[in-house]
């Protein structure tokens, strides 16, 4: 403890010294995958580049990629804080407790944790309403499936992923009452081998639509090899797999948020906040719906998209029951953010057990 506080003191002194010389704001990023995954981490890195583009010489950014979730990430964050970072973005759910722990040791460093729910005086949380994009995907999937089997590759059974499955299912079922979801948990955010195997197994079991909540393009490649299967880009556009198998995508757009938060640190106006923006605010983008989708389906998907964008429709609007048949949302009722943030149940109709 003593050694750590000495280190922290030295770091503060260095920060103060260099700060008075250069006046550069230092922003660190902790990534769960490689910046070249063309998925989740790639988009966060685009956000980092947006910060550099916006502030030029006034900012210095650095990142560490492929940081395992858990204790090792604490070491990386501590290292960044000791190097004098003013603001650190930790960009995966599993960094939640490590972020809180490290933040407690460095009260003067601001932290921003993506997709979590634990805040502190110097820890903000931010996420995007990916489930709005999942609604559009579910709508297209329900229309496009001929086998009525939709495969879904989940990463970890956490609220963010479960929300996506529920939202996709509700909107697929809306347009196709016979649709069935098959769900595989890969227990990884990024492992092309596992993701490819999972996609192949889903296809072998009859799925002709594969949705993924993992970050690599391997499921796209597997679908392409299988032939008559469609997919959706995850986190990033993955347009190189269009017009088929990839027929649309969810694109994360972190740049504007990262620029705004860096600006707040520069101005001294940074405060701990909880941000959860969706399609309307531009944090979630929907990639081009390709020619492989019939025009009437494309039109109805775009109509759904515009209703989500202007806020006239909520992706979780009743009547919706929970998987065990108990009532959740009454007719016309929309889900509150608290329930959504901690969502730990499937909606009625999903024929799969959730792992613990």
């Amino acid at each position, binding site marked *: 403890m003593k050694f750590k506080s000495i280190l922290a003191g030295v770091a503060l002194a260095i920060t103060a010294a260099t700060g008075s010389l250069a006046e550069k704001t230092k922003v660190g990023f902790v990534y769960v995958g490689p910046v070249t995954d063309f998925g989740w981490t790639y988009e966060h890195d685009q956000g980092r580049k947006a910060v550099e583009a916006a502030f030029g010489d006034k900012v210095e950014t650095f990142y560490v990629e492929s940081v395992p979730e858990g204790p090792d990430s604490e070491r990386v964050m501590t290292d960044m804080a000791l190097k004098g970072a003013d603001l650190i973005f930790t960009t995966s759910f599993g960094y939640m407790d490590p972020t809180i722990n490290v933040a407690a040791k460095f009260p003067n460093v601001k932290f921003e944790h993506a997709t979590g729910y634990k805040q502190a005086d110097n820890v903000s949380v931010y996420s995007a309403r990916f489930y709005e994009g999942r609604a559009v995907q579910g709508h297209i999937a329900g229309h496009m499936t001929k086998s009525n089997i939709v495969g879904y590759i989940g990463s970890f059974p956490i609220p963010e992923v479960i929300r996506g499955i529920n939202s996709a299912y509700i909107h697929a079922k809306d347009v196709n009452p016979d649709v069935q979801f098959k769900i595989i948990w890969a227990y990884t955010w990024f492992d092309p081998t596992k993701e490819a195997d*999972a996609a192949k*197994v889903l296809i072998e079991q009859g799925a002709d639509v594969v949705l993924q909540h993992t970050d690599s393009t391997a499921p796209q490649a597997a679908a392409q090899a299988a032939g008559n299967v469609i997919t959706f880009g995850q986190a990033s556009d993955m347009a190189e797999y269009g017009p088929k198998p990839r027929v649309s995508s969810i694109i994360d757009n972190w740049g504007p948020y990262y620029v705004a938060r860096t600006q707040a640190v520069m101005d001294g106006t940074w405060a701990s906040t909880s941000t959860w923006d969706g399609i309307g605010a531009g944090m979630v983008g929907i990639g081009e719906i390709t020619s492989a989708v019939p025009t009437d389906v494309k039109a109805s998907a775009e109509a759904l998209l515009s209703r989500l964008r202007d806020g006239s429709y909520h992706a979780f609007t009743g009547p919706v029951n929970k998987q065990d048949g108990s009532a959740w949302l009454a007719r016309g009722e929309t889900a509150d953010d608290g329930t959504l943030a901690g969502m730990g149940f499937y909606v009625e109709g999903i024929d799969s057990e959730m*792992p613990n």
Partner: protein
Amino acid sequence: MDLSAINPTLLVASLMVASTPILLAAIGELVVEKSGILNLGVEGMMIIGAICGFAAAVVTGSPMVGFLCAAIGGAAVSVIFAVLTQYFLSNQVASGLALTLFGLGLSAMIGQSYVGIKPPTTYKLDLPLISDVPILGPILFSHDFTVYAALVLVLGVWWFLKYTRGGLILRAVGESHDAAHALGYKVVRVRFMAIMFGGACAGLGGAALSLVRVPQWTEGMTAGSGWIALAIVVFASWKPERVLLGAYLFGGVAILQLNLQAAGVSIPVEYLSMSPYLITIVVLVAMSANRAKSALNAPAALGRVFHASR
């Protein structure tokens, strides 16, 4: 839960594909260990093969050139290990571990500009009538050539070890290098060649992963396959036919686990994921319980340093 959704034919067919990388690496390591060398660098050689094969296939547009370069790449890094252990008499365990770490790092460096690229498609067997025969068609006649190459290789290694003079010499070197040396066999040369063969096989295994199974390049994509290959050799008690069984079993567990999940069976994934290693431990314990039998199986000189002066 709907187990009928699992098609046994497709399950067998896809486990054959999924097992091919570890089968190739394991059969190579078996030959290495039969010569009395323990090379723990399989993972490193595999990943070097994965990137060499991928890069060559992308640059030339030919998967065959890719596989060739993968074998050469795997053999080339194994030469480092061979020189260290055969000429400088360094510790095999430490050298092997170093080779794994070196391979992972080097492959990441070579691979930087190959992330996110699609490789050319590998030729897949598709015989007009035969591939459509129910059950046998998908299992036997509709794979890419690596699946067949791996099977042929297993058969070849079995035949070589059992029926040829070369195989006898290799085994003699692995059982007692002093005796083999006294008889005039070139212990170091035999082992050098065995190590390079093992490297080439591991390289092919890596390419089967990056060019066929995924097919994509990502850093660290072997994700422990090399260690599983090592475990399979022990599990198989150094017998080629059992290596085949072990590889299909270990590969099968991974595929079965996904199939069960998709069919809606909620099973603790952790148990299935650890089962290959558990089986290996059980086999090791069972083998060491019966000393006379285990002495027959493991090459007697495995892991021991040889120097002609002794």
